[in-house]
């Protein structure tokens, strides 16, 4: 009862990365993009604000879907990939029934999501009125519904300020923003505008100790670093940021994951440890801006074309990892003789604010690269480190390690 067929390339996920991959695979033969939502576009489809080049999220989605369609890709929505039936074979469910599709290359572009309240182990009751930014924006922008009347926003990374704009636009009063870090982690202009002009206070070094209320949220208990507790009355709380790759399909397929990003570990050509399986976009690294995810998709497409032309899958790869206070690095594999990392750079995240840190890359005690960052490394935001040294990596050597030497604040 499961219909079977084959294609050349199967892309899972029609967000910016998946669509951009498809848009550059016009020469790859039969390309199919599977999207489980009713509409393509991923996160930008409910981002009704700028920041997508000169476009809003939905405008950007129209551009990407148009490009993928013009490249000849078949874009199918409301089709869910439910699992693997072979190394390059996926099972799907849709209104048309069950299918089993085998491809010559599979590109995983399933994106990232914000960790909800439960995964953050926030104690208290389980009332209505508890959101992530994703659910909030869909509620307001896709369904035209009011989320509540008075909100607290958890987090102060860029997405938190998107949540603030969505809430204010929906007429919701914002009691406070709360971050466990000593400062916001967004653009200075956003943070200043929100605090000064929109008069939304930001509580730093503070955490949510408890949610209150029975059927509907009635307030939250905030705990400050010195142990003080206070109740903030609100009927809505939005847990923002703390993105994790939506890696279920990758993990079910036995694709090796990186312990730092929790997305698939890939080399500079977006190749996972499984031959023929590529991964691109925010599945690889929490959340980068949509334009970055799309650029990765384009680069991944070039690697997919080389694979279809018969380029061998690398057998030997050198793992790359970070040490505290760095949180993760991407890509996490260096293929000797392989292409340089995307745009010649590695992406990194820190878990603490680091003022102009010295970054050191070494392998087996040998320093490969040393670089002083010209700015402060901010948690929840990536920074780039040059990858010009990858040619110097010993192909028979051990793990390449990124460390930061810094003054921390």
């Amino acid at each position: 009862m499961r219909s079977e067929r084959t294609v050349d390339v199967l892309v899972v996920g029609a967000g910016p990365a998946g669509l951009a991959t498809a848009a550059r695979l016009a020469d790859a033969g039969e390309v199919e993009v599977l999207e489980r939502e009713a509409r393509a576009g991923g996160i930008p489809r409910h981002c009704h604000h700028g920041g997508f080049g000169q476009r809003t999220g939905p405008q950007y989605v129209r551009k990407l879907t148009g490009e993928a369609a013009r490249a000849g890709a078949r874009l199918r929505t409301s089709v869910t990939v439910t699992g693997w039936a072979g190394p390059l074979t996926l099972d799907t469910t849709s209104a048309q029934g069950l299918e089993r599709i085998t491809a010559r290359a599979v590109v995983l572009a399933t994106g990232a999501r914000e960790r909800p309240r439960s995964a953050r182990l926030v104690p208290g009751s389980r009332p209505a009125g508890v959101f992530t930014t994703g659910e909030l924006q869909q509620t307001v922008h896709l369904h035209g519904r009011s989320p509540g009347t008075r909100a607290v926003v958890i987090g102060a990374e860029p997405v938190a300020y998107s949540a603030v704009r969505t809430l204010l636009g929906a007429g919701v009063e914002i009691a406070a923003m709360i971050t466990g870090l000593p400062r916001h982690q967004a653009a200075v202009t956003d943070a200043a505008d929100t605090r000064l002009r929109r008069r939304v206070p930001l509580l730093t070094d503070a955490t949510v100790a408890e949610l209150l209320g029975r059927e509907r949220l009635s307030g939250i208990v905030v705990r400050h670093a010195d142990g003080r507790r206070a109740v903030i009355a609100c009927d809505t709380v939005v847990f923002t940021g703390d993105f994790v790759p939506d890696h279920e399909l990758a993990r079910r397929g036995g694709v090796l994951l990186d312990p730092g990003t929790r997305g698939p570990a890939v080399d500079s050509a977006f190749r996972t440890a499984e031959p023929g399986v590529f991964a691109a976009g925010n599945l690889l690294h929490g959340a980068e801006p949509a334009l970055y995810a799309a650029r990765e998709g384009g680069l991944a497409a070039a690697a997919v074309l080389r694979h279809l032309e018969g380029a061998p899958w690398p057998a030997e790869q050198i793992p790359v990892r970070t040490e505290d206070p760095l949180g993760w690095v991407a890509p996490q594999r260096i293929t000797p003789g392989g292409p340089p990392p995307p745009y010649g750079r590695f992406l990194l995240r820190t878990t603490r604010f680091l003022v102009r840190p010295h970054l050191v890359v070494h392998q087996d005690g040998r320093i490969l690269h040393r670089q002083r960052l010209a700015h402060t490394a901010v948690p929840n935001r990536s920074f780039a480190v040059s990858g010009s040294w990858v040619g110097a990596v010993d192909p028979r050597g051990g793990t390449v390690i990124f460390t930061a030497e810094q003054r921390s604040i």
Partner: protein
Amino acid sequence: MTVTTAGELPDGTYDVVVVGAGVVGTAIARELARHPLRTAVVEAANDVGDATSKANTAILHTGFDAVPGSLESRLVREGQRRLAAYATESGIPVEPVGALLVAWDEEQRAALPALAEKAGRNGCPDARIIGADEVYRREPHLGPGALAALDVPGESIICPWTTTLSYATQAVRAGVDLHLNCRLHDVSRTPDGEGDGHSLRTSRGTVRTRYLVNAAGLHSDTVDRALGHDDFTVTPRRGQLIVFDKFARDLVRHILLPVPTALGKGVLVAPTVYGNVLLGPTAEDLDDKAATGSTAGGIAVLREKGRRIVPGLIDEEVTAVYAGLRAATEHDDFQIRAHPGQRYITVGGIRSTGLTASMAIAAYVTELLAGAGLGLGEPRDLEPVRMPNLGEAFPRPYQRAELIAADPEYGVLVCHCERVTRGEIRDALAGPVPPGSLDGLRRRTRARGGRCQGFYCGAEVRELFDERAEVQRG
């Protein structure tokens, strides 16, 4: 077929009113529905199974560790047989995974022979002690230090939500009235000349009944006192639980129980029929019958214990933390008593074994009602019910080509983490006992219950729920 959620209650006198629509109250209503009686259930919440029944450890017990000779022991054993058969007939997911009661020190190992002997007296002759080698062979992800275990093959996991809903559905279809949002304020004798019975004043007006069954769970002692009895006091015992995401399911094959102590049965690790893993419960005696919040301390204790039992568990994503209140009393047994002179049956002190015992409790309470003078009339077989499958061990709609071919709505996934289709959500909203909230919809479908907690589907599920509510309001 009547479920009411608002407005005045009907005139006239019921033969029996059951107070409380938990797993016990709905089981009693279902049993009474087999007889030509006018029966109603009054429930304070907006849904069935919305208090203690929704937040238990979801185990279909053998009763291997009950106090032999107690009422609980008898009803658990009988209830286990009845519910296992009923689950098969009704499509309630059950997985016979078996339990291992693991000894982590010499003292605990020394306690195993007595537990094995007790299990034998409780009708579990196949319970046996196994050594550490076999324990680790059968449970390879168990943490280090296990010395031995009592293997209890008969223990199963079950869906508690579908069980309660199945009872309620069958009862309502057979003519029982279910009055939700109907909080009992007080009980009085019906004035002379209006028949001998009870007049119940509720938040939705007064309702009369000849016989009264108190299945009010946490509030059963309050109702009992309103009838003039002082037989037991309910001390809510909070149990906090952590639910881990699907990837944790591969780490656990059995229900992993600790050796019980005087403080309770302890913290267990168990698979769920939804493909998750449960860690808990804590056991905290409280005064507040509404304290269903989790606490930082409780979560920390559970994570510490979980790390020892199955170390890999703690690295997996948590999909839910919740707390339930068990209706513990000062007695070591169920508190089920008939007061024939008052035409009143108390069903109190029903602990976590109440899910397993529910059908046997219902049969027993029906006998007690007959003994108190209620003419039951000729019983009839109820129309069988087939509940939507929420279990991973059985095909779910998204996996069923024939179902999708007949109705494509079963091929459109709305909740991706739990793989819930639009067809299932539509069915639940239009069901005979529809959900009163998004949480009620989750208990009927699993929608919004997964790792993303609504990041992807929350807004759409709410839209579907609100649309239905708006249609119903006209």
